[in-house]
């Protein structure tokens, strides 16, 4: 018997399906041939079931490994949610900034409300020059030089506006609150409106809308703007 033929007959030999003469020939061959006996021995071991053939899917996996993918998925979801919230929050802030865009109120030198000294060298005049030149830091420096006794809602208002334009929203709100607390009609509507703007930029939408609603019900040049802001901000 040739080795090739032997190899084709090994499985039949173990299944007992070889004819007697062939079986004898087969056995005589493996007594003579070491290579073929090795082939036979491998099958013998496999058929004896002494060899364990463990597939990947049958391997015992520690319990934490079962949870590993679950934990990974959960962590991914948490990260995705946080990322979404951050992006969403950032988008909301951007939208708030967009709808709260405003043109800096124009300083009118002939303004009669709470006039301060308008001599060309007074701190207020210097501040307003800087303000009109969009130099808000400089304007604030000049406004801070105005003595407490000469401070009035006009000075406070422009300080608030400067802070707002410099994105110092909390400081702006403090200045506007100062006007609102005075219960003085002078610059009251403006303070209300720009405080609402500052609150929108701080993403305090509910508080801002509350103020804007009050303003919209008042007989004020800002009421129509307040209504527009409410309609713009509400869906966000």
């Amino acid at each position: 018997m040739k080795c090739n033929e032997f190899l084709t007959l090994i499985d039949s030999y173990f299944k007992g399906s070889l004819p007697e003469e062939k079986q004898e020939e087969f056995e005589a061959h493996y007594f003579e041939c070491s290579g073929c006996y090795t082939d036979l021995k491998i099958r013998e071991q496999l058929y004896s079931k002494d060899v364990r053939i463990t597939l990947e899917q049958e391997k015992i996996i520690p319990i934490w490994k079962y949870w590993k993918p679950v934990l990974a998925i959960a962590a991914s979801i948490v990260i995705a949610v946080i990322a979404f919230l951050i992006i969403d929050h950032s988008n909301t802030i951007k939208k708030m900034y967009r709808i709260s865009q405003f043109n800096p109120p124009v300083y009118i030198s002939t303004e009669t409300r709470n006039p301060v000294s308008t001599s060309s060298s007074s701190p207020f005049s210097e501040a307003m020059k800087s303000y009109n030149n969009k130099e808000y830091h400089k304007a604030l420096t000049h406004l801070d030089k105005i003595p407490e006794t000469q401070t009035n809602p006009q000075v406070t208002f422009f300080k608030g506006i400067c802070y707002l334009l410099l994105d110092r929203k909390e400081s702006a709100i403090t200045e506007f609150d100062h006007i609102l607390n005075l219960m003085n009609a002078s610059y009251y509507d403006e303070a209300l409106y720009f405080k609402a703007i500052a609150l929108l930029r701080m993403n305090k939408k509910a508080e801002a809308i509350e103020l804007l609603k009050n303003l919209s019900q008042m007989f004020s040049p800002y009421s129509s703007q307040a209504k527009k802001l409410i309609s713009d901000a509400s869906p966000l």
Partner: protein
Amino acid sequence: MTSTDNILITRLMAGEPRAQREVINTYRSRIFSYFRMRIKGETYYEDFVQEVLASFFEAVRKGKITEDKFIAPFIFGIAKRVMYNFFYKQKRDSNIRKKGEEQFELSYDFEEEERMTNEKVNQAIQTCIDKKLREVDKVILKEFYIHENELEEVSSLLGKSKHYISVRKERALKKLKNEISKMKDIFIG
């Protein structure tokens, strides 16, 4: 094998103990395999191995085998005779060896030697399966040899052609054979 057999027989005739050991190492496992296949369900295969090898060495001692003979067919012939004798005697007597009969005995623990050989072979196969076979090959071997499925069944089970299954199985077995072949002291001959 002829020249090796000639030399080995000459050494055996000269009474060289290492020559006897070589014959035992080469044929012990084959004789075990033969009787395991031919006489299933028995527990005293060692007696058969003892009888075959003892008969062979006795024949050499008595000059019944000469340098021009091949060892493998001679031993295989003895194994066949022992097997037929067993079935013949089984009809009359359950003992395979006659009690009280003076017989030439070899002082080897063939059972233990065979157990150790099988353990080494098993270990080598196990390592190769675990470390060198691909998952698909493991599945194929498992279906063939553990679940004892036919080629057609394995083919339809895995949804692959019979040719593909057959080729993969042969490759896997070849890898196992390469591992066993590295163990030079296992099957000398």
